[in-house]
């Protein structure tokens, strides 16, 4: 453990942007975890519509009479959860495709990678839009769509890692000892290809938040009131402008700060974990 803390300390010390990123992400996570406990309202408590900002409602209320601050704080929770679920989906699906492709090689590899190429040569956001149109405008479907669209990037990265690590001596050794491919994959290859995946995962959180919010903005996000998600909150305010300008400003700022946090952190991790750019 102390090796990790040492590493973390050194990492954050030398990567100022990553430090800023960590602070931002931690702040949002903290809000998501602790915030709802501290607040005095529930997200679906109804007050008068468009109440002014003041001691009763720090950020005022929205067009439906919900307290905006409360919804933003609960929104931190849902937004992070949604992004995490859809990023994990991309990660699992992408890793599976990438690993199979890299391990199997030959025709399977060719076929899978052609598929990945095709998927990646098309604007992902547009694909996600079409996917939501097919599945129906519900938040669950938005998560699935964003998850699917994010998968090819992971697939490509994992395949590259498998090819890199797969030729390493310990893997050859493991295979020569008669371990099956899946066992070799999970016991030897995966753990050794973790770091680029962590980097992609961190950056993927940011883009998942942006994509989910973007789909919500186009009216494809589903019920904005039952689940306070920042993109939906922003969109709701946008539809009620100029009365709800503050709502748009606050929700957008929250999204921006969180995504920036993940991007700064991911960028720092990339520098640190990538052996080619590691600080000398």
């Amino acid at each position, binding site marked *: 453990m102390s090796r990790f803390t040492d590493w973390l300390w050194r990492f954050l010390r030398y990567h*100022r*942007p990553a430090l800023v990123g960590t602070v931002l992400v931690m702040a949002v996570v903290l809000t998501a975890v602790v915030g709802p406990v501290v607040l005095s309202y529930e997200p679906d408590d109804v007050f008068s519509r468009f109440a002014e900002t003041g001691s009763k409602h720090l950020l005022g209320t929205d067009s439906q009479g919900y307290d905006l601050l409360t919804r933003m704080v609960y929104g931190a929770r849902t937004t992070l959860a949604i992004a995490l679920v859809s990023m994990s989906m991309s990660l699992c699906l992408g890793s599976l495709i990438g690993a199979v492709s890299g391990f199997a090689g030959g025709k399977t590899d060719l076929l899978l990678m*052609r598929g990945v*190429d*095709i998927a990646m*040569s*098309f*604007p*992902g*956001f*547009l694909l996600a*839009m*079409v996917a*939501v*149109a*097919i599945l*129906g405008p519900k938040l669950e479907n938005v998560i699935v769509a964003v998850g699917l669209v994010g998968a090819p990037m992971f697939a490509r990265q994992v395949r590259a890692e498998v090819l890199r690590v797969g030729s390493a001596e310990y893997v050859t050794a493991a295979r020569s000892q008669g371990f099956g491919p899946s066992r070799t994959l999970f016991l030897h290859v995966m753990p050794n290809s973790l770091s680029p995946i962590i980097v992609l995962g961190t950056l993927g959180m*940011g883009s998942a938040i*942006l994509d989910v*919010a*973007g789909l919500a*903005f*186009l*009216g*494809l996000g589903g019920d904005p009131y039952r689940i306070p998600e920042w*993109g939906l909150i*922003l969109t709701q305010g*946008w539809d009620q*402008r100029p009365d709800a*300008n503050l709502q*748009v*400003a606050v*929700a*957008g*700022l929250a*999204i*921006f700060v969180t*995504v*920036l946090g993940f*991007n*700064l952190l991911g*960028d720092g991790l990339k520098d640190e974990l990538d052996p080619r750019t590691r600080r000398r």
Partner: protein
Amino acid sequence: MLAYIVRRLGLSALLLAVVVAATFMLHHALPGDPAAAVLGKQYTQEAAHEMRERLGLNDPIPTQFVRYVGRVASGDLGRSHVSNELVTEELKRALPATIELALTALLIATLVGVTLGVLTALRPRTWWDVAGLTAALAGVSLPIFWLGFLALQAFGESGVMADVLGVRGLPLGGRFSPAAYSLGQFVNETPAATGFFLWDTLFVAGDTQVFLHVLKHLFLPAIVLASVPMAVIARITRASMGDALLQDYVRTARAKGLRARTVVLKHALRNASIPIVTSIGTQLGYLIGGAVLTETIFQWPGMGTYVVDSIRALDVKPLQACVLVVAVGFVIVNLLVDISYAWLDPRVSTAGGAE
């Protein structure tokens, strides 16, 4: 190189085939009954059945597929059931709008991005560098619709900045104001008009006043759309310029006493340009996705709003057409990138010269 391009062509053809098949499936995958969509208020189950018959939806799937491919190949993209208009006609209006917006954004992104990248690369590890990198990272973290909102609040009509400066501010949306609606008639009725308003107003009509009018409408959306590509291009430029400046030939050139500007522009930037050009190419993909959101904010009557409207109304024909058009656009852009790649790579060009 030729083999590479041929292989790319093969992949492109494959991509197009996949997209045609996928768009065909859209017809059946989308929720809602296309017949019900056409009938609207007049919907009854009998009428819907009759309409499905008329639309050929009761035929076997392979028959429908063959018919679909045949129609697409002959340029028949069907009619929108919302406007009852030919999709090709609607595309003729939407496509130039988006291309004009995307190219303007790309131009801004490239100019500003490359400048920013070069400047930061020349001053590594200074505040310039850090500020530039952070700004670039901020650029890719911004929700583009939020940026659009802020831009409108600041510079739009009766926005904050406009108030401070006592000017009217930029238009809130559209390609031209209703006051100039005869402009729309002009574009629709003049054979020489291309639908690219900057071109039409300046060269076809030769009217600088209207040109400025159009430019004002284009400005905010283009800046907003440019934000992300600008950030990416700046980062790539910074990285590849950083590498290039450390190369031996640059040091040699400097040692030879060549002027700093010549070194930077002629040698380093040229060698750094391959990844930059590649990134500009890949940014077009982003531009299409970003255009959807930007166009929605600024009510830009382009492909983005067309896609969103057809998805909202589950209007199958325009949606199929949009996906097809975007795919074709992609294939073309990717090929162009490959060709410029070959053109820029010094090794390829010397090899060609020696032959």
